[in-house]
């Protein structure tokens, strides 16, 4: 069993919220992903067993939803909005700067496994465009050079919030 006891407890507590176990599936995957950053084949097997689903049924969900990761990601996940309002307000400049700073492109992870850059559809802060989200932190009204300072915070061992 790869799932931690308290993760299991958290998942089982959610079963009361919905009439069927499988409705908890996405929450359960998010709970497991919280600590591990991504969902392994073993996680799929174990969570599926907990929710009376087959591994294939659960993987069918895990591979559909964009915020469930079935492959390893870096320590910090950078989500750069490439939708239309951000694009109009200079998102391509952010892409160039990010690519320069990290030496990777969208969908890639830095060799030191510190950052994964994911392109993302609209973060819903279009009036503050352009925007990125690093882990759970939102940054808006960005100029490309702002990224230098922001990324630095995540390099210096942890984030000040």
């Amino acid at each position: 069993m790869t799932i931690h006891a308290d993760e299991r407890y958290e998942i089982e507590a959610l079963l009361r919220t919905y009439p069927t176990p499988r409705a908890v599936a996405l929450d359960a995957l998010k709970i497991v992903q919280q600590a591990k950053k991504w969902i392994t084949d073993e996680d799929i097997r174990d969570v599926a067993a907990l929710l009376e689903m087959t591994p294939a049924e659960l993987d069918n969900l895990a591979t559909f939803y964009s915020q469930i990761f079935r492959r390893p990601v870096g320590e910090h996940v950078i989500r750069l909005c490439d939708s239309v309002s951000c694009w109009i307000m200079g998102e391509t400049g952010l892409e160039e700067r990010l690519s320069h700073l990290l030496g990777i492109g969208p969908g890639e992870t830095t060799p030191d496994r510190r950052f994964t850059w994911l392109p993302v559809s609209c973060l819903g802060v279009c009036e503050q465009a352009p925007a990125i989200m690093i882990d759970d932190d939102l940054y808006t009204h960005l100029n490309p050079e702002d990224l230098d300072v922001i990324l630095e915070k995540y390099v210096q061992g942890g984030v000040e919030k």
Partner: protein
Amino acid sequence: MKRERPLTQHFRSDGQALSLREYEAVGGYQGLRAALRMERHQIIKTIRESTLSGRGGAGFSTGRKWTFIPDEDLHERHVFPHEMVMMIEEPDQWEHALAGFTTGVKWSFMPKGEYITTPTYVVANADEMEPGVFKDRVLMEGNPHQLLEGMIISAHAIGANTAYIFLRWAYKKSARCIEKAIAEARQANYLGEHILGTDFNIEIYLHISAGRYICGEATALLNSLEGRRANPRAKPPHTAAVGLWGRPTNVNNVETLSNVPHILRNGSDWYKGLSYTDEGGTKIYGVSGRVKRPGWWELPMGTIAREIIEEHAGGMADGYHLRGFLPGGASTDFLLTEHLDVRMDVKSVDAIGSRMGCGTMIILDDKTCPVGMVNNVMRFFARESCGWCTPCREGLPWTANVLNAVEAGQGRPEDIDRLRTHARWIGRPDNTFCALAPGAMEPLQSALRYFEDDFREHIHLGRCPWRRKGGPI
């Protein structure tokens, strides 16, 4: 006279959400108290009379939506309300009618009395994920209790005891605000059992999405809540008859539900008086792009587009000129400067060949390439297609590839007609289970109409003419 802005006028200036106590001090939960004293059909009647239309982008009428839940008397005779018969026998007209319904009508579609096949559900659609749209976020961060109160009233009106908020994953702050508000409301017995001493019980659960634009489509949302892929379902049946776990379910947008408490507290005549047109209430309008003050404003329904862009958004940013705008999010047809005097309500924007959608405009300026803009929007829709229907799964990436080639200067003259053909066929509402693909074609078909010269220039020059103008590339 200063106009009322019931949804946002009591927002705190520091951007924090109103607490329960602060909300109660400005009339919060009085709408619920009024509703609990009313018969259910009276609540739905009030919402119908208010002419509140759905704020989720399709313009559906809320009161009418609530009446979709099968009716007691009609059930005794084993027939559905006539709207339902119409849904089943004449799906085309039904689709057309959907665009004009008020929220009260939607509510009246729900089953009533002993014919409620319990449990019945209320779902708040908070999966706001269309590019350019951010109004629901504003409401959830500013006053989450207003949404909860609207949901509780809706649940009472249609006889539901369980409600879910389906929230998009990116709205971290909204999630914190809603969780706190639910805890406060439970403490004060607005949630739980025997609400305010009545026999009405209601629980609200927050479900945070795992991502995908398609989750905002009502039936895909329900599949997602059930722990399935967010593929849309065939309609009919309407979710009011067969929704969450096969039960009658009312799905309403966050802004729609946030209007409900105010209507119950102040009456439908007051509500209609807030509007400039025959579509009642106020509307959260928004503007993004190269204007001086991008943002949102609660204004009378039917406020003129020019006023929103030139006064509230402060006009174009220095050095930029307005070329056009998507009036209601990425899935609406372009409008031009000649359309600036349109009233921003469902009927008026429809009449000039676009849609009000969510009322959140995206501005096309003269330094931004219209082909690039359409290409960006098309890549979004292609990425977010759920893959269920072939025209969407295959057609959107194909269209995006053609647009990509044109933008990169590798287009051929015949590509313009090719794009028109795609826009026509993929744009047909009866070829797919949901409106994602037809919506994706709206900015394209209108760009081909209004900006054809720009497409031709790309093809003729063999490059994007904007690449030297300092705009996005």
